Protein backbone atom coordinates (compact mmCIF):
# COMPACT_ATOMS: atom_id res chain seq x y z
CA UNK A 1 0.00 0.00 0.00
CA UNK A 2 2.23 2.78 -1.29
CA UNK A 3 -0.16 5.72 -1.50
CA UNK A 4 -1.34 7.18 1.79
CA UNK A 5 -2.74 10.42 0.49
CA UNK A 6 -5.75 11.24 -1.61
CA UNK A 7 -9.20 12.76 -1.74
CA UNK A 8 -12.18 11.93 0.45
CA UNK A 9 -15.29 10.33 -1.04
CA UNK A 10 -18.06 10.79 1.49
CA UNK A 11 -20.94 8.42 2.17
CA UNK A 12 -23.94 8.54 4.51
CA UNK A 13 -24.78 6.20 7.40
CA UNK A 14 -25.79 2.57 6.88
CA UNK A 15 -24.19 1.89 3.51
CA UNK A 16 -24.98 -1.82 3.05
CA UNK A 17 -22.85 -4.44 1.33
CA UNK A 18 -25.71 -4.62 -1.18
CA UNK A 19 -24.91 -1.01 -2.12
CA UNK A 20 -21.17 -1.76 -2.29
CA UNK A 21 -21.53 -5.02 -4.24
CA UNK A 22 -25.12 -5.58 -5.43
CA UNK A 23 -26.28 -9.19 -5.65
CA UNK A 24 -27.30 -8.67 -9.27
CA UNK A 25 -23.59 -8.64 -10.16
CA UNK A 26 -22.98 -12.00 -8.50
CA UNK A 27 -21.33 -13.28 -11.69
CA UNK A 28 -18.42 -10.85 -10.98
CA UNK A 29 -17.67 -12.77 -7.77
CA UNK A 30 -14.24 -13.98 -8.91
CA UNK A 31 -13.38 -11.27 -11.49
CA UNK A 32 -11.38 -8.50 -9.81
CA UNK A 33 -11.42 -6.05 -12.72
CA UNK A 34 -15.19 -6.23 -12.99
CA UNK A 35 -15.60 -6.08 -9.22
CA UNK A 36 -13.54 -2.89 -9.10
CA UNK A 37 -15.64 -1.31 -11.84
CA UNK A 38 -18.90 -1.58 -9.83
CA UNK A 39 -17.59 -0.64 -6.37
CA UNK A 40 -20.28 1.22 -4.40
CA UNK A 41 -22.30 1.66 -7.63
CA UNK A 42 -25.68 1.75 -5.90
CA UNK A 43 -24.46 4.28 -3.31
CA UNK A 44 -22.54 6.66 -5.59
CA UNK A 45 -22.43 5.93 -9.28
CA UNK A 46 -19.51 8.29 -10.05
CA UNK A 47 -17.24 6.71 -7.43
CA UNK A 48 -15.86 3.67 -9.28
CA UNK A 49 -15.07 5.45 -12.59
CA UNK A 50 -13.26 8.31 -10.82
CA UNK A 51 -11.62 6.93 -7.68
CA UNK A 52 -7.81 7.03 -7.74
CA UNK A 53 -5.24 5.00 -5.82
CA UNK A 54 -4.62 6.67 -2.48
CA UNK A 55 -8.17 8.02 -2.12
CA UNK A 56 -10.33 7.49 0.96
CA UNK A 57 -13.86 6.30 1.53
CA UNK A 58 -15.21 8.41 4.39
CA UNK A 59 -18.53 7.39 5.89
CA UNK A 60 -20.95 8.04 8.69
CA UNK A 61 -22.06 5.23 11.05
CA UNK A 62 -22.36 1.51 10.32
CA UNK A 63 -20.49 1.33 7.03
CA UNK A 64 -20.69 -2.10 5.37
CA UNK A 65 -23.79 -3.38 7.14
CA UNK A 66 -25.43 -6.61 6.06
CA UNK A 67 -23.92 -9.53 4.25
CA UNK A 68 -20.60 -11.24 4.92
CA UNK A 69 -19.56 -11.07 1.24
CA UNK A 70 -15.84 -10.45 1.46
CA UNK A 71 -15.78 -9.03 -2.05
CA UNK A 72 -17.21 -5.79 -0.58
CA UNK A 73 -13.99 -5.33 1.40
CA UNK A 74 -11.83 -6.64 -1.41
CA UNK A 75 -13.28 -3.95 -3.68
CA UNK A 76 -11.88 -1.26 -1.32
CA UNK A 77 -8.47 -2.82 -1.88
CA UNK A 78 -8.96 -3.14 -5.63
CA UNK A 79 -9.69 0.60 -5.77
CA UNK A 80 -6.32 1.21 -4.08
CA UNK A 81 -7.82 3.14 -1.18
CA UNK A 82 -5.45 4.42 1.51
CA UNK A 83 -8.09 3.57 4.09
CA UNK A 84 -11.79 3.28 4.74
CA UNK A 85 -12.74 5.74 7.46
CA UNK A 86 -16.10 5.69 9.23
CA UNK A 87 -17.77 6.77 12.44
CA UNK A 88 -18.43 3.05 12.94
CA UNK A 89 -18.38 -0.16 10.92
CA UNK A 90 -20.52 -3.24 10.68
CA UNK A 91 -18.42 -5.95 12.29
CA UNK A 92 -18.10 -8.53 9.50
CA UNK A 93 -17.13 -5.87 6.95
CA UNK A 94 -14.62 -4.42 9.42
CA UNK A 95 -12.99 -7.80 9.98
CA UNK A 96 -13.01 -8.49 6.23
CA UNK A 97 -11.20 -5.19 5.50
CA UNK A 98 -8.36 -6.09 7.84
CA UNK A 99 -8.24 -9.65 6.46
CA UNK A 100 -7.79 -8.41 2.88
CA UNK A 101 -5.26 -5.80 4.05
CA UNK A 102 -7.27 -2.56 3.91
CA UNK A 103 -6.98 -0.23 6.93
CA UNK A 104 -10.44 0.37 8.42
CA UNK A 105 -10.33 3.38 10.71
CA UNK A 106 -12.99 4.35 13.21
CA UNK A 107 -13.18 8.05 14.02
CA UNK A 108 -15.64 10.94 14.04
CA UNK A 109 -15.89 11.85 10.36
CA UNK A 110 -18.38 14.76 10.76
CA UNK A 111 -15.75 17.36 9.91
CA UNK A 112 -14.59 15.78 6.64
CA UNK A 113 -16.17 17.09 3.44
CA UNK A 114 -16.32 15.40 0.08
CA UNK A 115 -13.15 16.15 -1.91
CA UNK A 116 -11.00 17.03 1.13
CA UNK A 117 -7.35 16.08 0.76
CA UNK A 118 -6.49 13.46 3.41
CA UNK A 119 -3.36 11.69 4.53
CA UNK A 120 -3.16 8.76 6.91
CA UNK A 121 -0.28 7.90 9.24
CA UNK A 122 -1.31 4.47 10.47
CA UNK A 123 1.43 3.80 12.99
CA UNK A 124 0.95 7.21 14.59
CA UNK A 125 -2.85 6.83 14.61
CA UNK A 126 -3.34 10.12 12.77
CA UNK A 127 -5.51 11.23 9.88
CA UNK A 128 -4.55 14.63 8.49
CA UNK A 129 -7.05 16.80 6.64
CA UNK A 130 -4.89 19.06 4.47
CA UNK A 131 -7.88 20.96 3.10
CA UNK A 132 -9.10 22.01 6.55
CA UNK A 133 -5.75 22.04 8.31
CA UNK A 134 -6.91 19.59 10.96
CA UNK A 135 -5.60 16.37 12.41
CA UNK A 136 -7.82 13.61 13.79
CA UNK A 137 -6.46 10.92 16.08
CA UNK A 138 -7.71 7.35 16.24
CA UNK A 139 -6.98 4.54 18.71
CA UNK A 140 -4.95 1.49 17.61
CA UNK A 141 -6.74 -1.62 16.36
CA UNK A 142 -6.97 -4.73 18.57
CA UNK A 143 -3.45 -6.27 18.64
CA UNK A 144 -4.34 -9.25 16.45
CA UNK A 145 -5.76 -6.95 13.76
CA UNK A 146 -2.66 -4.73 13.79
CA UNK A 147 -0.53 -7.83 13.17
CA UNK A 148 -2.80 -9.07 10.37
CA UNK A 149 -2.70 -5.66 8.70
CA UNK A 150 1.07 -5.36 9.08
CA UNK A 151 1.53 -8.82 7.59
CA UNK A 152 -0.54 -7.78 4.56
CA UNK A 153 -3.75 -9.66 5.31
CA UNK A 154 -4.93 -12.81 7.03
CA UNK A 155 -3.55 -15.39 4.58
CA UNK A 156 -0.08 -13.80 4.80
CA UNK A 157 -0.43 -13.62 8.60
CA UNK A 158 -1.20 -17.33 8.93
CA UNK A 159 1.51 -18.23 6.42
CA UNK A 160 4.03 -16.29 8.49
CA UNK A 161 3.02 -17.36 11.99
CA UNK A 162 1.19 -20.64 11.43
CA UNK A 163 -1.65 -19.40 13.66
CA UNK A 164 -3.48 -16.26 14.76
CA UNK A 165 -1.18 -14.19 16.95
CA UNK A 166 -3.54 -12.80 19.58
Amino acid at each position, binding site marked *: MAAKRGRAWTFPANVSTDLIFPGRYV*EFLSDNAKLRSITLCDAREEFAPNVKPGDFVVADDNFG*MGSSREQAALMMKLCGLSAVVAKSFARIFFRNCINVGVPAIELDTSDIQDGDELEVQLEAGRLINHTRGRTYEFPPLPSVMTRILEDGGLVAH*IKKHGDFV*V
Partner: protein
Amino acid sequence: MAQTLAEKIIASHVGKEVRPGELVLTEVDLIYAHDLSGPLAISQLEAIGFKGFKRPERIVFFLDHASPVSTRQAANDHKRIREFAGEHEVRFYDVGNGVSHQVAVEELVKPGQIVVGGDSHTCHGGALAAFATGMGSTDVAMTMYLGRTWLRVPPSQRFFLHGTTPAGVYPKDMMLHIIGKISVSGATYKAMEFVGPVIDQMPMYHRMVFPNMAVEAGAKVGLVPSDEQTKLYLAEHGRAGDYTPWAADPGAQYQEEYDIDVSRLEPQIACPHNVDNVKPVSEVGYVQVHQVYLGTCTNGRLEDFREAAAVLKGHKVARGVRLVATPASRDVYMKAAREGIWDIILEAGGLVNSPGCGACPGVQTGILADDENCLSTLNRNFKGRMGNPKANIYLASPATCAAGALAGEIVDVRKQVKHGR
Protein backbone atom coordinates in the same frame (compact mmCIF):
# COMPACT_ATOMS: atom_id res chain seq x y z
CA MET B 1 -18.19 -13.92 38.63
CA ALA B 2 -21.66 -14.14 37.09
CA GLN B 3 -21.48 -14.40 33.30
CA THR B 4 -23.81 -13.75 30.39
CA LEU B 5 -24.66 -16.60 28.02
CA ALA B 6 -22.17 -15.38 25.41
CA GLU B 7 -19.40 -15.13 28.01
CA LYS B 8 -20.21 -18.60 29.39
CA ILE B 9 -19.98 -20.28 26.01
CA ILE B 10 -16.66 -18.62 25.20
CA ALA B 11 -15.35 -19.36 28.72
CA SER B 12 -16.21 -23.05 28.28
CA HIS B 13 -14.03 -23.11 25.17
CA VAL B 14 -11.01 -21.20 26.46
CA GLY B 15 -10.97 -22.73 29.93
CA LYS B 16 -11.19 -19.51 31.90
CA GLU B 17 -13.61 -16.71 32.73
CA VAL B 18 -13.73 -13.97 30.11
CA ARG B 19 -14.65 -10.29 30.17
CA PRO B 20 -16.17 -8.13 27.43
CA GLY B 21 -13.48 -6.59 25.24
CA GLU B 22 -10.99 -9.38 25.87
CA LEU B 23 -9.37 -11.02 22.83
CA VAL B 24 -9.43 -14.81 22.83
CA LEU B 25 -8.24 -17.59 20.58
CA THR B 26 -10.89 -20.31 20.63
CA GLU B 27 -11.60 -23.72 19.19
CA VAL B 28 -14.56 -23.72 16.78
CA ASP B 29 -16.94 -26.69 16.78
CA LEU B 30 -18.63 -26.20 13.42
CA ILE B 31 -17.42 -24.21 10.40
CA TYR B 32 -19.36 -23.82 7.18
CA ALA B 33 -19.47 -22.02 3.88
CA HIS B 34 -21.96 -21.88 1.02
CA ASP B 35 -21.87 -21.36 -2.72
CA LEU B 36 -21.15 -17.61 -2.51
CA SER B 37 -18.59 -17.67 0.31
CA GLY B 38 -17.17 -21.10 -0.58
CA PRO B 39 -15.22 -20.42 -3.80
CA LEU B 40 -13.07 -17.67 -2.23
CA ALA B 41 -12.63 -19.77 0.93
CA ILE B 42 -11.31 -22.65 -1.19
CA SER B 43 -8.98 -20.27 -3.07
CA GLN B 44 -7.61 -18.99 0.25
CA LEU B 45 -7.06 -22.54 1.49
CA GLU B 46 -5.14 -23.23 -1.71
CA ALA B 47 -3.17 -20.00 -1.24
CA ILE B 48 -1.97 -21.15 2.16
CA GLY B 49 -0.73 -24.45 0.81
CA PHE B 50 -3.51 -26.48 2.37
CA LYS B 51 -3.09 -30.26 2.15
CA GLY B 52 -6.03 -31.53 4.20
CA PHE B 53 -8.25 -30.80 7.22
CA LYS B 54 -7.07 -31.78 10.67
CA ARG B 55 -10.68 -32.06 11.86
CA PRO B 56 -12.82 -32.70 8.75
CA GLU B 57 -15.82 -33.66 10.89
CA ARG B 58 -16.24 -30.00 11.87
CA ILE B 59 -16.44 -28.71 8.30
CA VAL B 60 -19.51 -28.37 6.09
CA PHE B 61 -20.25 -26.99 2.65
CA PHE B 62 -23.76 -26.04 1.51
CA LEU B 63 -25.10 -25.10 -1.91
CA ASP B 64 -28.07 -22.91 -1.04
CA HIS B 65 -27.92 -19.48 -2.67
CA ALA B 66 -28.30 -20.63 -6.28
CA SER B 67 -30.47 -23.65 -5.77
CA PRO B 68 -30.66 -24.97 -8.41
CA VAL B 69 -28.25 -22.84 -10.47
CA SER B 70 -29.39 -20.50 -13.22
CA THR B 71 -26.02 -19.43 -14.66
CA ARG B 72 -23.02 -21.27 -16.06
CA GLN B 73 -20.69 -19.54 -13.65
CA ALA B 74 -22.68 -20.62 -10.61
CA ALA B 75 -22.75 -24.15 -12.02
CA ASN B 76 -18.96 -24.14 -12.20
CA ASP B 77 -18.66 -22.74 -8.67
CA HIS B 78 -20.97 -25.51 -7.47
CA LYS B 79 -18.90 -28.11 -9.28
CA ARG B 80 -15.73 -26.81 -7.63
CA ILE B 81 -17.27 -26.94 -4.13
CA ARG B 82 -18.82 -30.37 -4.74
CA GLU B 83 -15.47 -31.77 -5.87
CA PHE B 84 -13.53 -30.10 -3.03
CA ALA B 85 -15.93 -31.45 -0.40
CA GLY B 86 -15.69 -34.91 -1.96
CA GLU B 87 -11.92 -34.88 -2.15
CA HIS B 88 -11.54 -33.85 1.49
CA GLU B 89 -14.38 -36.03 2.76
CA VAL B 90 -16.23 -33.26 4.57
CA ARG B 91 -19.98 -33.01 5.06
CA PHE B 92 -21.70 -31.64 1.99
CA TYR B 93 -25.29 -30.53 1.32
CA ASP B 94 -26.07 -30.25 -2.36
CA VAL B 95 -28.77 -28.05 -3.91
CA GLY B 96 -32.27 -28.88 -2.75
CA ASN B 97 -31.40 -29.40 0.91
CA GLY B 98 -32.19 -25.85 1.93
CA VAL B 99 -30.65 -22.77 3.50
CA SER B 100 -27.42 -23.56 5.36
CA HIS B 101 -28.57 -21.97 8.62
CA GLN B 102 -31.86 -23.85 8.76
CA VAL B 103 -30.25 -27.19 7.86
CA ALA B 104 -27.58 -26.46 10.47
CA VAL B 105 -30.10 -26.05 13.30
CA GLU B 106 -32.01 -29.14 12.18
CA GLU B 107 -29.01 -31.43 11.86
CA LEU B 108 -25.73 -30.01 13.16
CA VAL B 109 -25.68 -27.19 15.72
CA LYS B 110 -25.61 -28.13 19.40
CA PRO B 111 -26.21 -25.94 22.46
CA GLY B 112 -23.01 -24.45 23.88
CA GLN B 113 -21.05 -24.73 20.63
CA ILE B 114 -19.05 -22.04 18.86
CA VAL B 115 -20.03 -21.92 15.20
CA VAL B 116 -18.48 -19.87 12.38
CA GLY B 117 -20.23 -19.60 9.02
CA GLY B 118 -19.47 -17.72 5.83
CA ASP B 119 -22.75 -15.86 5.89
CA SER B 120 -24.10 -13.04 8.02
CA HIS B 121 -27.16 -15.02 9.13
CA THR B 122 -25.04 -17.72 10.76
CA CYS B 123 -26.26 -16.11 14.00
CA HIS B 124 -29.43 -18.17 13.39
CA GLY B 125 -27.75 -20.98 15.35
CA GLY B 126 -28.08 -18.86 18.51
CA ALA B 127 -31.64 -20.17 18.75
CA LEU B 128 -30.09 -23.39 20.06
CA ALA B 129 -27.87 -21.45 22.51
CA ALA B 130 -24.82 -21.74 20.26
CA PHE B 131 -22.38 -18.85 19.87
CA ALA B 132 -22.85 -18.74 16.09
CA THR B 133 -21.42 -15.87 14.10
CA GLY B 134 -20.91 -14.87 10.47
CA MET B 135 -17.53 -14.09 8.94
CA GLY B 136 -16.04 -13.52 5.50
CA SER B 137 -14.51 -16.20 3.27
CA THR B 138 -10.89 -15.74 4.40
CA ASP B 139 -11.78 -15.96 8.09
CA VAL B 140 -13.87 -19.05 7.37
CA ALA B 141 -11.03 -20.62 5.36
CA MET B 142 -8.44 -20.01 8.05
CA THR B 143 -10.84 -21.24 10.75
CA MET B 144 -11.41 -24.42 8.72
CA TYR B 145 -7.65 -24.78 8.32
CA LEU B 146 -6.72 -24.22 11.99
CA GLY B 147 -9.91 -25.38 13.69
CA ARG B 148 -9.97 -22.15 15.65
CA THR B 149 -10.40 -18.40 15.37
CA TRP B 150 -9.93 -15.22 17.35
CA LEU B 151 -12.81 -13.34 18.92
CA ARG B 152 -13.28 -10.21 20.92
CA VAL B 153 -15.64 -11.12 23.77
CA PRO B 154 -18.75 -9.04 23.07
CA PRO B 155 -20.59 -6.98 25.65
CA SER B 156 -24.12 -8.37 26.06
CA GLN B 157 -27.57 -6.84 25.83
CA ARG B 158 -30.56 -8.46 27.52
CA PHE B 159 -34.02 -8.33 25.95
CA PHE B 160 -36.70 -9.35 28.42
CA LEU B 161 -39.95 -10.10 26.60
CA HIS B 162 -43.11 -10.34 28.64
CA GLY B 163 -46.88 -9.81 28.39
CA THR B 164 -49.61 -11.53 26.41
CA THR B 165 -49.03 -11.89 22.68
CA PRO B 166 -52.02 -10.36 20.85
CA ALA B 167 -53.72 -12.24 18.00
CA GLY B 168 -52.10 -11.46 14.65
CA VAL B 169 -48.78 -10.62 16.28
CA TYR B 170 -45.83 -12.95 15.75
CA PRO B 171 -42.12 -13.13 16.67
CA LYS B 172 -41.30 -11.30 13.43
CA ASP B 173 -43.36 -8.34 14.65
CA MET B 174 -41.56 -8.42 17.99
CA MET B 175 -38.09 -8.56 16.42
CA LEU B 176 -38.90 -5.78 13.93
CA HIS B 177 -40.14 -3.72 16.86
CA ILE B 178 -36.86 -4.36 18.72
CA ILE B 179 -34.72 -3.39 15.72
CA GLY B 180 -36.88 -0.30 15.14
CA LYS B 181 -36.23 0.63 18.75
CA ILE B 182 -32.46 0.07 18.91
CA SER B 183 -31.63 0.77 15.21
CA VAL B 184 -29.65 -1.14 12.59
CA SER B 185 -26.46 -0.48 14.53
CA GLY B 186 -27.94 -0.73 18.03
CA ALA B 187 -26.20 -4.02 18.76
CA THR B 188 -23.00 -3.62 16.71
CA TYR B 189 -20.20 -5.89 18.04
CA LYS B 190 -22.55 -7.05 20.83
CA ALA B 191 -24.38 -10.20 21.89
CA MET B 192 -28.18 -9.95 22.04
CA GLU B 193 -29.70 -12.30 24.59
CA PHE B 194 -33.44 -12.95 24.35
CA VAL B 195 -35.18 -14.07 27.54
CA GLY B 196 -38.39 -13.74 29.52
CA PRO B 197 -41.76 -15.50 29.72
CA VAL B 198 -42.68 -14.80 26.08
CA ILE B 199 -39.49 -16.51 24.89
CA ASP B 200 -39.81 -19.33 27.45
CA GLN B 201 -43.23 -20.26 26.10
CA MET B 202 -42.22 -19.99 22.47
CA PRO B 203 -41.53 -23.09 20.38
CA MET B 204 -38.16 -23.22 18.60
CA TYR B 205 -39.45 -22.31 15.14
CA HIS B 206 -40.68 -19.02 16.57
CA ARG B 207 -37.56 -18.40 18.65
CA MET B 208 -35.34 -18.69 15.59
CA VAL B 209 -36.53 -15.34 14.24
CA PHE B 210 -34.74 -13.45 17.03
CA PRO B 211 -31.15 -14.72 16.68
CA ASN B 212 -31.58 -14.88 12.91
CA MET B 213 -32.22 -11.15 12.71
CA ALA B 214 -29.69 -10.16 15.38
CA VAL B 215 -27.26 -9.23 12.61
CA GLU B 216 -29.82 -6.70 11.33
CA ALA B 217 -29.07 -4.71 14.48
CA GLY B 218 -25.34 -5.27 13.92
CA ALA B 219 -24.92 -7.98 16.56
CA LYS B 220 -22.13 -10.55 16.60
CA VAL B 221 -24.50 -13.16 17.99
CA GLY B 222 -28.12 -13.51 19.08
CA LEU B 223 -28.76 -16.05 21.82
CA VAL B 224 -31.69 -17.83 23.38
CA PRO B 225 -31.05 -20.02 26.46
CA SER B 226 -31.55 -23.75 25.86
CA ASP B 227 -34.40 -25.44 27.72
CA GLU B 228 -37.25 -27.95 27.35
CA GLN B 229 -38.29 -26.39 24.02
CA THR B 230 -34.75 -26.83 22.72
CA LYS B 231 -34.73 -30.42 23.92
CA LEU B 232 -38.05 -31.06 22.16
CA TYR B 233 -36.80 -29.58 18.89
CA LEU B 234 -33.59 -31.62 18.97
CA ALA B 235 -35.59 -34.77 19.75
CA GLU B 236 -37.95 -34.05 16.82
CA HIS B 237 -34.89 -34.04 14.59
CA GLY B 238 -33.51 -37.25 16.05
CA ARG B 239 -30.87 -35.47 18.15
CA ALA B 240 -32.15 -35.70 21.73
CA GLY B 241 -28.61 -36.63 22.83
CA ASP B 242 -27.23 -33.28 21.62
CA TYR B 243 -29.10 -31.33 24.30
CA THR B 244 -27.35 -29.53 27.13
CA PRO B 245 -28.85 -26.68 29.18
CA TRP B 246 -27.26 -23.24 28.75
CA ALA B 247 -28.33 -19.97 30.36
CA ALA B 248 -26.73 -16.83 31.75
CA ASP B 249 -25.83 -16.78 35.43
CA PRO B 250 -28.18 -14.83 37.68
CA GLY B 251 -26.66 -11.40 38.27
CA ALA B 252 -24.66 -11.35 35.02
CA GLN B 253 -23.66 -7.89 33.84
CA TYR B 254 -25.33 -6.49 30.74
CA GLN B 255 -24.31 -3.38 28.89
CA GLU B 256 -27.98 -2.63 28.19
CA GLU B 257 -31.23 -4.16 29.37
CA TYR B 258 -34.50 -3.75 27.47
CA ASP B 259 -37.94 -4.51 28.82
CA ILE B 260 -40.33 -5.38 25.98
CA ASP B 261 -44.05 -5.68 26.78
CA VAL B 262 -45.58 -7.43 23.76
CA SER B 263 -49.18 -6.97 24.96
CA ARG B 264 -49.83 -3.76 23.05
CA LEU B 265 -47.88 -4.55 19.90
CA GLU B 266 -49.65 -4.54 16.58
CA PRO B 267 -48.33 -6.13 13.38
CA GLN B 268 -45.13 -4.33 12.36
CA ILE B 269 -43.77 -3.43 8.93
CA ALA B 270 -40.13 -2.56 8.14
CA CYS B 271 -40.39 -0.03 5.32
CA PRO B 272 -37.71 0.66 2.67
CA HIS B 273 -34.70 0.76 2.74
CA ASN B 274 -33.51 -0.11 6.25
CA VAL B 275 -34.62 -2.77 8.70
CA ASP B 276 -35.06 -0.17 11.46
CA ASN B 277 -37.57 1.88 9.46
CA VAL B 278 -40.31 0.07 11.35
CA LYS B 279 -43.92 1.20 11.68
CA PRO B 280 -47.02 -0.36 13.17
CA VAL B 281 -49.18 -1.48 10.23
CA SER B 282 -51.82 1.15 11.08
CA GLU B 283 -49.29 3.91 10.32
CA VAL B 284 -48.00 2.56 7.01
CA GLY B 285 -50.70 3.99 4.73
CA TYR B 286 -51.50 2.74 1.25
CA VAL B 287 -48.80 0.56 -0.29
CA GLN B 288 -49.64 -1.49 -3.36
CA VAL B 289 -48.09 -4.97 -3.33
CA HIS B 290 -46.76 -6.52 -6.55
CA GLN B 291 -44.98 -9.53 -5.12
CA VAL B 292 -45.23 -11.42 -1.87
CA TYR B 293 -42.28 -13.60 -0.97
CA LEU B 294 -42.65 -16.20 1.77
CA GLY B 295 -39.54 -18.01 2.93
CA THR B 296 -35.84 -17.48 3.86
CA CYS B 297 -33.91 -18.60 6.94
CA THR B 298 -35.92 -16.02 8.90
CA ASN B 299 -39.43 -17.30 8.16
CA GLY B 300 -39.24 -20.31 5.88
CA ARG B 301 -40.20 -23.04 8.33
CA LEU B 302 -43.22 -25.34 8.38
CA GLU B 303 -45.08 -23.29 10.95
CA ASP B 304 -44.46 -20.04 9.05
CA PHE B 305 -46.15 -21.56 6.00
CA ARG B 306 -48.94 -22.88 8.23
CA GLU B 307 -49.54 -19.35 9.50
CA ALA B 308 -49.59 -17.98 5.95
CA ALA B 309 -51.80 -20.82 4.72
CA ALA B 310 -54.33 -20.17 7.48
CA VAL B 311 -54.85 -16.69 6.01
CA LEU B 312 -54.79 -17.83 2.37
CA LYS B 313 -57.04 -20.88 2.67
CA GLY B 314 -60.04 -20.69 0.35
CA HIS B 315 -59.01 -17.32 -1.12
CA LYS B 316 -57.24 -16.10 -4.24
CA VAL B 317 -54.38 -13.65 -4.38
CA ALA B 318 -55.33 -10.23 -5.72
CA ARG B 319 -55.01 -9.63 -9.45
CA GLY B 320 -51.47 -8.57 -10.34
CA VAL B 321 -49.84 -10.09 -7.26
CA ARG B 322 -47.21 -12.84 -7.56
CA LEU B 323 -47.09 -15.03 -4.49
CA VAL B 324 -43.78 -16.93 -4.26
CA ALA B 325 -43.09 -19.47 -1.51
CA THR B 326 -39.67 -21.03 -0.89
CA PRO B 327 -39.21 -23.49 1.99
CA ALA B 328 -36.01 -23.10 4.03
CA SER B 329 -35.18 -26.81 4.05
CA ARG B 330 -36.00 -30.17 2.52
CA ASP B 331 -37.55 -31.18 5.85
CA VAL B 332 -39.89 -28.17 5.71
CA TYR B 333 -40.66 -28.87 2.04
CA MET B 334 -41.68 -32.46 2.68
CA LYS B 335 -43.66 -31.83 5.85
CA ALA B 336 -45.56 -28.93 4.29
CA ALA B 337 -46.33 -31.11 1.27
CA ARG B 338 -47.74 -33.88 3.47
CA GLU B 339 -49.87 -31.38 5.38
CA GLY B 340 -51.38 -29.97 2.18
CA ILE B 341 -49.92 -26.50 2.76
CA TRP B 342 -48.59 -26.25 -0.78
CA ASP B 343 -52.08 -27.13 -2.07
CA ILE B 344 -53.46 -24.09 -0.26
CA ILE B 345 -50.76 -21.80 -1.67
CA LEU B 346 -51.13 -23.20 -5.19
CA GLU B 347 -54.93 -22.99 -5.09
CA ALA B 348 -54.65 -19.38 -3.93
CA GLY B 349 -52.69 -18.66 -7.12
CA GLY B 350 -49.20 -18.80 -5.65
CA LEU B 351 -46.18 -20.87 -6.62
CA VAL B 352 -43.75 -23.00 -4.64
CA ASN B 353 -40.02 -23.13 -5.36
CA SER B 354 -37.37 -25.64 -4.32
CA PRO B 355 -35.73 -25.24 -0.88
CA GLY B 356 -32.95 -22.67 -0.55
CA CYS B 357 -32.35 -18.94 -0.31
CA GLY B 358 -34.66 -18.30 -3.27
CA ALA B 359 -35.38 -14.68 -4.11
CA CYS B 360 -33.75 -13.21 -0.98
CA PRO B 361 -30.23 -12.54 -2.33
CA GLY B 362 -31.56 -11.00 -5.53
CA VAL B 363 -30.05 -13.36 -8.04
CA GLN B 364 -33.00 -15.56 -9.10
CA THR B 365 -36.63 -16.69 -8.82
CA GLY B 366 -38.38 -13.45 -8.00
CA ILE B 367 -36.30 -10.40 -8.99
CA LEU B 368 -38.38 -7.23 -8.82
CA ALA B 369 -39.16 -4.76 -11.60
CA ASP B 370 -38.57 -1.00 -11.34
CA ASP B 371 -40.89 0.76 -8.88
CA GLU B 372 -42.41 -2.50 -7.68
CA ASN B 373 -43.15 -3.20 -4.04
CA CYS B 374 -42.45 -6.57 -2.47
CA LEU B 375 -43.94 -7.60 0.86
CA SER B 376 -41.79 -10.35 2.30
CA THR B 377 -40.88 -12.45 5.29
CA LEU B 378 -37.18 -11.97 4.56
CA ASN B 379 -34.71 -10.35 6.92
CA ARG B 380 -33.42 -7.27 5.14
CA ASN B 381 -34.96 -4.66 2.89
CA PHE B 382 -31.80 -2.91 1.70
CA LYS B 383 -31.97 -1.05 -1.57
CA GLY B 384 -31.15 -3.55 -4.31
CA ARG B 385 -31.48 -6.58 -2.06
CA MET B 386 -33.90 -8.45 -4.32
CA GLY B 387 -31.99 -7.63 -7.48
CA ASN B 388 -33.27 -4.16 -8.33
CA PRO B 389 -32.25 -0.91 -6.59
CA LYS B 390 -35.35 0.78 -8.05
CA ALA B 391 -37.71 -1.57 -6.20
CA ASN B 392 -38.99 -1.41 -2.62
CA ILE B 393 -39.03 -4.18 -0.02
CA TYR B 394 -41.32 -4.27 3.02
CA LEU B 395 -40.70 -6.81 5.78
CA ALA B 396 -43.42 -8.47 7.82
CA SER B 397 -44.64 -11.72 9.40
CA PRO B 398 -45.85 -14.63 7.24
CA ALA B 399 -49.47 -13.90 8.21
CA THR B 400 -49.20 -10.21 7.31
CA CYS B 401 -47.55 -11.15 4.01
CA ALA B 402 -50.34 -13.59 3.18
CA ALA B 403 -52.97 -10.95 3.98
CA GLY B 404 -51.13 -8.53 1.69
CA ALA B 405 -51.19 -11.07 -1.13
CA LEU B 406 -54.96 -11.37 -0.89
CA ALA B 407 -55.60 -7.64 -0.59
CA GLY B 408 -52.99 -6.51 -3.14
CA GLU B 409 -51.84 -3.93 -0.62
CA ILE B 410 -50.35 -3.87 2.86
CA VAL B 411 -53.18 -4.49 5.32
CA ASP B 412 -53.73 -5.31 8.96
CA VAL B 413 -53.89 -9.12 9.07
CA ARG B 414 -56.20 -8.96 12.08
CA LYS B 415 -58.90 -7.26 9.98
CA GLN B 416 -58.20 -9.37 6.91
CA VAL B 417 -58.67 -12.58 8.88
CA LYS B 418 -61.98 -11.35 10.26
CA HIS B 419 -63.74 -10.52 7.01
CA GLY B 420 -61.77 -12.99 4.92
CA ARG B 421 -63.25 -16.08 6.47
